[in-house]
């Protein structure tokens, strides 16, 4: 309910997890894009002024292309995102996780006209707030999704304690819990780490030990489970 992850299954049978972008990220993206377009038009008007009539004619065509063609051009590029979206680490994909197709890009960008109604993207904002996947009307018709690019997870440094053999057989779920505790260890305060390790104390044996010693041994068990041996 709180989690907005959308998963799509690929033909290879794995689930791709996508995190749809919300209103704030997409608002920033469109502001950046609009600033870029405005800057280009301002720069171009000087050149147009020098060229006279033809210049102004082409300036108007440029204004048209920037309004309608700019997002289509960039979405169909390799990165699947306009410069504004790229700056916000967003990307447009089909809602089955595939790269966006020309058809979908054209549909979603022409339907901007109705998303913009009644003013300042009112319809789009209304629609995005109602839906957990944050689609605007154009996204609905084009079957597209604006997603956050996955952030590279820092590789947890797990190799600072000596491995300890677990005191009992652990089910796969428990093994995973101990390992992920060890992976989170660097982000936790010492006190909190001790508290959490105390919950898992049975994996390192029943003898009474100091809390810090328990923590060290629980982390050691994680090392063992990962496959390290002394």
């Amino acid at each position, binding site marked *: 309910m709180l989690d907005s992850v959308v998963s799509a299954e690929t033909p290879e*049978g794995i689930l791709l997890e996508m995190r749809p972008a919300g209103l704030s990220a997409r608002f920033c993206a469109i502001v950046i894009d609009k600033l870029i377009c405005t800057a280009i038009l301002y720069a171009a008007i000087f050149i147009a002024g020098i060229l006279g009539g033809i210049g102004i004619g082409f300036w108007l*065509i440029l204004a048209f292309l920037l309004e309608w063609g700019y997002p289509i051009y960039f979405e169909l590029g390799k990165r699947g995102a306009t410069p504004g979206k790229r700056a916000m680490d967003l990307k447009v994909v089909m809602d089955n996780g595939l790269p966006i197709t020309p058809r979908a890009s054209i549909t979603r960008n022409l339907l901007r*006209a109705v998303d913009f109604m009644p003013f300042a993207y009112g319809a789009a904002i209304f629609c995005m707030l109602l839906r957990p996947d944050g689609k605007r009307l154009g996204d609905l018709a084009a079957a597209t999704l604006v997603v956050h690019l996955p952030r590279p997870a820092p590789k947890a440094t797990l190799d600072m304690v000596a491995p300890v053999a677990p005191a009992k057989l652990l089910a796969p*779920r428990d093994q995973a819990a101990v390992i992920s505790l060890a992976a989170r260890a660097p982000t936790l305060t010492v006190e909190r780490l001790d508290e959490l390790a105390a919950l898992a104390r049975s994996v390192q044996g029943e003898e009474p030990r100091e809390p810090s010693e328990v923590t060290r041994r629980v982390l050691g068990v994680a090392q063992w489970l990962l496959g390290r041996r002394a």
Partner: protein
Amino acid sequence: MTPLHFEQQYQAEWDELAAQVRLIFEGRAKQSATSRPIRGEHVASLYRRACEHLALARARAYPRYMIDKLERITSDAHQVIYQRREFGLTRAWHAVAYDFPRAVRAHAGYVWLAAALFMIPTLLVGWLVYERPDLILSVVDGETAAKFEEMYSDSAEAIGSTRGANENWIMFGFYIKNNISVAFQCFAGGMLAGVGSMFFLIYNGVFGGAIGGYLTERGLSHNFYSFVVTHAAFELTAIVLSGAAGLRLGHALIAPGRKTRLQSMVDASKDILPIIYGFVVMLIIAAAIEAFWSSARWLPSEVKYSVAAICWLAVLLYLTLQGRRAD
């Protein structure tokens, strides 16, 4: 097998896949610069292996960082492997020769409805304003009416008489920006259950009819009709088609039949895409004609009307007959 063992064993494959995907991503220029060329079938098999590894890692609840890494590698490769390239000259030719006219015929009902929504107000309001010219003031204000009257008058200020190449270019840009935006809005209005498209069709019909009726009553029909008749073949048809596309979208939304409303809309937008390509091209042609041909007042009206007749005939024959054999 422990997680670390697993990682050690397959790390090299994952790194290779990631490197190859990055190479594909960066394009041909960089590819030729490196010593290791890309072999498509190799990338595909590496990708399938990585998918297996991801499924295994998930099933065995391996550490989160490893699953994250595999997810990232596979989803990047997935994007590259399933990329679709739909552009190209053959494709564009196919769209012109078959897709567009066939899509228009497949949506004949919507096209007729859009044409009626546009033409009936045009003719009705045109006739009313012709009979009672003061009615023009209920459509546009007096200033606009006077401006239109001056534009099509026989005086030196009128369009075309003194217009040079420069002004023609300005108007070309203006027509492209303005007319295509109007058509896009007319189409997008279909999202509002079709009402938006209907509104734009009727609105444009009323406006055009009022101006036409008013200028005819003022005795300026020779200037007005010789100006509009040629590009109207493309422009009016394109507006009707954009409205028809919008109506289709709206209809899909109101009456999805056995599909979900969403699916019905997605399918409709797939069907009408050739019409969108088509009306954009028609509006570009219309803008060029309107800017460079229609405005040339030194041309005798006989020439203009003959060219206009040919244009109308060509557009109608193209939409009704082109690509029929492949139907």
